[in-house]
Structure formats: C-alpha cells, structure tokens
C-alpha cells in the first residue's frame, strides 16, 4: 500500500507538471501544495484498496482538477479541457502499458508483484512527461482547444449531462442485482433529468431575451444614427442651398428661394439684396446683410485673386459653403452677445490651399472638451449639430482656437491639382 501511495504521489505531481508543459506555464512546487497533493494521493490509495478500481479512476479525475486548480490559475474551460485530455491520454497509456507489462511478466515470472507495478508506473510517468514535451502534441492540443473554446456553454452542459447519464448507466449495470443501489441510481437519474430540463428551459429563454435585446439595441442604435444624420442634413441644408445660390443665375436663385420657403428653412435675404456678388463674397454678403441692423462691426479682407469655384472641385466648393455658413452663423450669434460685436473675416491662399479665417468676440461659458461633440451647444436645445458635422471632415478642415476673448475658426481647403 505504501509503495502504491508513493507511486500515486509521483503520478499526481508528474501529471500536474505535464499540465504546465502542455499549457506553457511554470510549475511552482511549494510545500503547502505538495502536502495537499500527498493528502489527495493517500485518499486515492485508500479508495483504491477499500472501494474499487472504478471509484479510484473517477476519484483521480476529481483529484486532477483540484491539483491543476491548485498549481495554475486558468479559466474553467481551459482547466477542464487540459485536465481531461491529460487524464484520458494518461489513463489510456496506463491501461495499455499495464496490460503489456502484466502479460510479459506473467509469461516469464508468473506473478506480478507490487514493486514491478510501481516501477512500471514510474516508467510510464517518465514516458508521459516526454510525450507531452513533443512540440506537435502541444500544437495539436492547442488547436483542438481553440475549436472547443468556441462551443457555447449550453453545449458543454449537454455534454456533461450525457456523460453523467452514461456514468449512471455503467453504475446501474454493475449494480444490477442490488435493489437499493438501483433505486438510488434511478433517483439520481430522475434528479439530473429534472435539473437539466429546468436549466435548458431557463437558458433557452435567456437566449431568446438576449437575442431580442441585441436586436433592439442594434435597431435603436441604427435609428439614433439615422435620426442624427437627418437632423444634421436639415440643419445644414440651408447652407448647401446658399452655396448653390452663390454661383447661380437669377432664375435659379428664384427657384432656390422658393425651395427654402417651401421647407420653412431660415430664409436668406438674397432676394432683398440688389447686385449680390457671386461666389463666396456673395455668401458672406448675405450674412452681413441679414445682420445689418444689429450693429456688428464687420471687417472683411479678401486677399485672393482666384475664383474659388474654379480652383475647387464642386464637392469641395459645396462643403466649403456649408462650413463657411455654419461658422459665420455661429460667429454672428456669439458676437451679438458682446459689447464690442466684432467679426473679422480674412480669405487667403497659398499655392496649395485656400484659408478662410473667421474671428469674433464672444462672451460665454464654454466646456472646452465638449466643443464639437454631438448636441453640445451654448444655445437652446435642438442645436449642437453644426460644429459636430464639420469637425470630422478631412477635405474641408476646420481648426478652432480661442485666444482670450476671441473665437477663431480657420477653414482650410486644398485647391485642385493643376495638370501639367
């Protein structure tokens, strides 16, 4: 019994070590843990001698789980998988090797002694340790684990239930002539069945709820996103139409003015202004004219010689008009709240870019980190869309600075490349 106990301790420690080799983790031997292993080995020995071999086999599996949990800190799935794998392979080699050894010994010595059994166990343990060091065994087991990891928990639950029933079936077979044991096994079968039905029902309802919630969240997210885009479109359309009007002929302007009125957008006063300039200058003039009674101190410096419509693609021109309209509206609204009411616009260019700088006085309480975020506004609710819609653009960029009491927006747009 002592020899058997020693062999079990070595076997337990070796299999824990093999777990570390397979999962590429360090096997830390500490006294407290070794003592626990020794205790488990002693219990295994007692089970083997006092109960039977089958009980010992299942006890060993239970003990391996305890030991791997003791030595390594892995999630449950990994622990169960690798422990089972090593137990199964170890068990298989154990059975095969013991059978071969017993056959050979019976052939030559007619008797299998305890010492021979223990020596065979040691040899087997060394063999298993070397086997699991083979790179391809580890790679294969990892690949299999990766596949198994994707199996849902419900499937694991079914596997365990089936295994349990199989186990009870085996036990029932071996206790076929024992009425009491048979009743107990039957009781456990019914209990397992009831619990499994309950769990299946709960899990399936939960799954339905999760699927429904997921769909609702996705739909809600889509709706919110669409709603935001719709709000931004409605908010910015007036600036897009103003941009078109800036290069339109008289007839087109009238049609556009009619559209603006039809959709109840904030009307531009272009129909009230005679000889409105074309292009960006006309756009700016509209904004100034609509605020002429509010005593805003405008200063406009246009240093460029190019006609913007000719040096930008239609897409960029449209976006520029939209961006300029939003920035100007914000600037005028902000500057009207100040005593000085100053608004300066400078339009400059270099070889590659057009720059439009809008500087205005302002008086406000601002959350600097929130500027440009969706729905952040210093106006009433329903705003907070303009800056958000223009900040994310790359073809027409906006750089915003606050310098003391001045708010500055610099719009930068790349000119068309001149073909050689």
């Amino acid at each position, binding site marked *: 019994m002592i020899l058997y106990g020693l062999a079990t301790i070595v076997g337990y420690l070796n299999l824990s070590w093999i777990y570390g080799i397979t999962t590429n983790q360090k096997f830390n031997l500490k006294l407290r843990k070794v003592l626990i292993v020794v205790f488990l080995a002693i219990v295994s020995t007692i089970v083997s001698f006092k109960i039977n071999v089958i009980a010992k086999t299942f006890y060993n599996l239970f003990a391996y789980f305890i030991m791997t949990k003791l030595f390594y800190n892995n999630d449950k799935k990994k622990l169960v998988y690798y422990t089972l794998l090593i137990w199964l392979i170890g068990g298989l080699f154990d059975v095969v090797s013991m059978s071969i050894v017993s056959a050979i010994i019976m052939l030559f010595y007619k008797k299998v002694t305890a010492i021979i059994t223990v020596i065979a166990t040691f040899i087997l343990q060394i063999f298993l340790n070397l086997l699991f060091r083979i790179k391809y065994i580890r790679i294969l087991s990892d690949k299999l684990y990766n596949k198994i990891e994707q199996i849902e928990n419900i499937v694991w639950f079914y596997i365990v239930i089936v295994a349990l029933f199989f186990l009870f079936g085996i036990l029932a077979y071996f206790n076929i002539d024992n009425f009491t044991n048979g009743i107990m096994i039957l009781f456990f079968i019914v209990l397992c069945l009831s619990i499994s039905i309950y769990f299946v029902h709960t899990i399936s309802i939960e799954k339905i709820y999760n699927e429904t919630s997921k769909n609702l969240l996705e739909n809600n997210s889509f709706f919110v996103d669409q709603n935001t885009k719709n709000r931004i479109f409605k908010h910015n359309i007036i600036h897009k139409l103003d941009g078109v009007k800036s290069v339109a002929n008289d007839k087109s302007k009238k049609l556009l003015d009619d559209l603006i009125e039809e959709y109840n957008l904030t009307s531009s006063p272009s129909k009230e202004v005679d000889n409105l300039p074309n292009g960006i200058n006309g756009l700016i003039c509209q904004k100034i004219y609509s605020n002429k009674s509010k005593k805003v*101190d405008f200063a406009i*410096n246009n240093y460029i010689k190019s006609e913007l419509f000719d040096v930008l693609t239609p897409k960029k021109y449209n976006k520029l008009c939209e961006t300029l309209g939003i920035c100007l509206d914000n600037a005028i609204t902000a500057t009207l709240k100040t005593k000085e009411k100053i608004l300066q616009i400078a339009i400059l260019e270099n070889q590659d870019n057009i720059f439009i700088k809008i500087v205005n006085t302002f*008086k406000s*309480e601002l959350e*600097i980190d929130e500027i*440009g975020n969706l729905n952040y506004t210093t106006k009433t609710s329903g705003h907070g869309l303009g800056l958000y819609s223009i900040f994310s653009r790359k073809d027409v960029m906006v750089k*915003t600075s*606050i*310098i003391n009491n*001045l708010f500055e927006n610099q719009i930068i747009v790349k000119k068309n490349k001149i073909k050689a």
Partner: protein
Amino acid sequence: MKSVIKFVVVDDEESCLNNVKDIIREVTFNLEEEVKIETFIKYSKKLEKEINNVSERKIYILDIQLDDKFSGIQVAEMIRSVDWESEIIFMTYHDKMFETVYRKVYEVFSFIEKFHDFRERLKKDLKTILKKNCDNKLFVYQSRNVDLKIYLKNILYIYRDKEERKVVIVTDNNKFTVGLGVQEILEFLDSSFAVVHRACIVNKTRVQKYHWTDKYFVLDTGEEVNMLSKKYKKEVLCSNEC
C-alpha cells in the same frame, strides 16, 4: 547674461523708419536690457524668419499701408499665428479706420496716426510697454477640437467644478471649463497665482481685497467670491510681501 528686447519696425518709407529708430533709441537709452532694432521696408523671407523666431521678446511697430502685396494687417496676422506674447503697435494715416476690429483681433497695443503727434504718442506707448514688462504669458490648453490660449493677466480666478474632475477658469468676459485638476493647473500658472481655498486659485494681481474672516475676496471687477480659507492666509501674505 543680459536679456534682450527686440524692436521690429516695418515701414515702406525710409524716413519714417529712421524716425522710429531715433525714438526707440531715445526711449531705451537707460534700459538695462540689450536693445536690438530690425527694420524692414516690406515683407520678406528675413521678416518671416524674424516673426517665426519666438524665443526673443519683441515689440513690433508696423505701418498698415505698406507699398507691397502684404499689408501691415497681414503681417500682424502672421505674427499672431505664432506669437501672442509680443506687442504690436500700428502706424496709420487714417484715423480710427482700422482701430476697433483689429485692436481686438490682433491684440494691438495701439494705433498711432503718422501726422498727428506721432513722436510723443509713440514714445508714450513704448514707455508703457517697457514698464509693464511685456507681461503676456499665456495659459495654453489643447482639447481634441479646440486650442485655448488665455493671457495669465486676464484670468481672474480658477475653481474646481463640483460635479466632475474639471476646473473652471474665470476671465473678465468668459468662463472656460477644462479637464484638469486644481493641482494640475498650477503647473501652467506663474507666481502671480496663489491657492486661497482647496478648490480655488486666484490671480493675486486682480484681487482688490481679502476678507479672511468672512471667507471671501473681492476682485478688481467688483465680483465677490466666497472661496477663501484662513489655512492659506500665511502663504498668500508671505508671497505678496516677497
């Protein structure tokens, strides 16, 4: 090593340039600092390089009407794109035409008419600038979308936002909430600021009176702020004396 003050004069008239140089020499005669004067008749690469060199303390004296594709206003714009600490004085023929907007927009110190008491006015303005020691240090904070720059002299006080880990910077006209703690923002400030409460830092140069017993201070704007703690009295008084 002596500190340097640089005067950059941009005017297309040679006679005016020489006149300004004489005035500068007259005003800076007794100064301890080393004085350098650079003159330009128009915008050039050399002037651009001078503007972009922000390591020196500068006073720009610019003619608005330059006989060139770049006006004085554009030169001021270029200066302010890299440098908010240097002072700018504009020389102009036109009374008041540019004053209001550009004074604010480019933080122009003054506009001086060339044919109306020019010499005396320029001398007076230069003396004022030199006396106030060109105190234009900036508090700079960058968020994802916005760059914030405030002259330290314009900050009245800073207090901690109750709800979130942010501070509110109070200036003469505005309040800015930034994502910094009280201790973090101290690193951006100079010795003119003092902690007067565990949740408040004040610009000492803007305080009219401290009421330690009643736990409030009064600013030069007349505002009373109830964030004063006796715990910090000794430090504040000591730093004022120093």
